[in-house]
């Protein structure tokens, strides 16, 4: 391996070595998704007992929403936390004076986010199947497209957050944990977009996640794949990823103008 793939692997190796050495970090990856699944799983069990078997499909949509939302959230946090790890260890100065290109940095962070997401979400998927009789794979092969869209949306949000950290320094760190939750009400994770007030529906429909969750409910409730939702999700992801990439490129350039790459952690 040489050139860009090797440099990308170099940065990934740095993070993988960190996880190999720190079991609390590894545990933390799966902790929140599993905790979330436990809470929603028990809620689903209660609703099924209370409302009878007629609620089973709705409950499936609920658990599907929990799992797929974790895909988006963990993908976003996978990028931003990996970037913050560099910032916290005051290592960015060394990274940015190496031949690692900015796009290679982003590629490494995205690869790490995929690994982090899979490690974090897989136990929750297993838990849902073992204890709550919900098999997310029952969504069929289209699940891969749902996953892809939610991951891309997570990366777009993450790039925007990293851009804000480059712009505002460590003061913008809380965005890494909070910003995606701000989009959750508009993402229609647990309810259809139609439930939202008419004034905020355009906001929801501008988010790829809302189309993914509409598509998921289409399969679970109606048994049909609504391809136009997937097409909208991919199209919107293309736009948002493009915007986030431009924002990142702009803020990276500005950080070089301001000299923030050395002092960003302070």
């Amino acid at each position, binding site marked *: 391996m040489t050139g860009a793939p090797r*440099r990308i692997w*170099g940065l990934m190796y740095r993070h993988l070595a960190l996880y190999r050495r720190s079991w609390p970090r590894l545990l933390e990856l799966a902790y929140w998704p599993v905790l979330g699944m436990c809470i929603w799983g028990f809620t689903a069990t209660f609703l099924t007992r209370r409302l009878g078997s007629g609620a089973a499909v709705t409950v499936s949509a609920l658990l599907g929403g929990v799992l797929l939302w974790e895909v988006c959230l963990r993908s976003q946090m996978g990028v931003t936390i990996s970037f913050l790890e560099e910032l916290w260890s005051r290592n960015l100065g060394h990274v940015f004076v*190496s031949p690692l290109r900015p796009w290679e940095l982003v590629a490494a962070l995205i690869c790490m986010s995929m690994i982090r997401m899979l490690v974090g979400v897989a136990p929750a998927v297993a838990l849902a199947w073992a204890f709550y009789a919900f098999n997310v794979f029952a969504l069929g092969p289209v699940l891969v497209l749902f996953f892809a869209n939610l991951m891309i949306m997570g990366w777009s949000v993450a790039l925007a957050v990293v851009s804000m950290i480059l712009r505002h320094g460590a003061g913008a760190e809380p965005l890494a944990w909070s910003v995606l939750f701000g989009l959750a009400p508009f993402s229609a994770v647990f309810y259809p977009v139609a439930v939202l007030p008419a004034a905020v529906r355009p906001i929801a429909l501008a988010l790829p996640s809302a189309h993914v969750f509409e598509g998921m409910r289409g399969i679970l409730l109606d048994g049909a794949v609504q391809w136009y939702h997937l097409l909208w999700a991919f199209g919107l992801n293309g736009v948002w990823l493009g915007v986030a990439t431009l924002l990142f490129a702009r803020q990276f350039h500005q950080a*070089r103008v301001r000299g923030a790459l*050395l002092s960003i952690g302070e």
Partner: protein
Amino acid sequence: MNLSPTNAIEVQGLIKRYGDVLAVDGIDFAAPAGATLGLLGGNGAGKTTTIAMLLGLLLPTSGSIRVLGHDMLRDRFAALARMNFSSPYVSLPQRLTVRENLRVYGHLYNVRHTDARIAELAAELDLGVLLDRPAGQLSAGQKTRVALAKSLINRPELLLLDEPTASLDPDTGDLVRTWLERYRAETGCTILLASHNMAEVERLCSHVLMLKQGRVVDRGSPQDLLDRYGRDDLEEVFLDIARDRRSAGGPSVNQDAVPA
């Protein structure tokens, strides 16, 4: 200014302005390949800002920088692969072992046979027993040696060192200086050194740039400067410049004495 293909660094009309603050005010200099160039100046003189621009971490307001023949504003990655940097103010990940840290940078710099190179550096810098210890558990002197190993992982042709022996005990400081002298002699590497340790600069540097308020206020070999200011050591020369005092028959500011 004498631009030459044998110069490892060529800087012309370099200016860095932060709002109303002029951090670097139109400096010109060149470092001949194989030379050790010292950047001297008080706090805020512009040393770190200059190094950050040489590394491409910071964009100049105006001026040009060529490093190892590459324009740092257009083609910095070609130069970055052939140079390296060490500073006590930039850390390595503390939870990774020394070996893991060096492997990371071996990958980032596309070093062939990284593990063999790590073993070589470990032998030369006496790091053998430290390789499998987390970087965060090392003493200041050990960290400095590890940082030096990181900066040498790619056998750089240009080494930028920001206060490489700051906070080191005399023994470790001497070890580092001896090693740098040997590395330069063996490889012909160019070294740019920012330091407040005047004895270190006298010992290591073939050329010195004296910076004050973002400007080059004097330059020359350490011996040139000692002769010009009529002093016995560079510390006195530094104080003469920092305090705007001149020794008897003292010089005027000399901008052209050193390879510039």
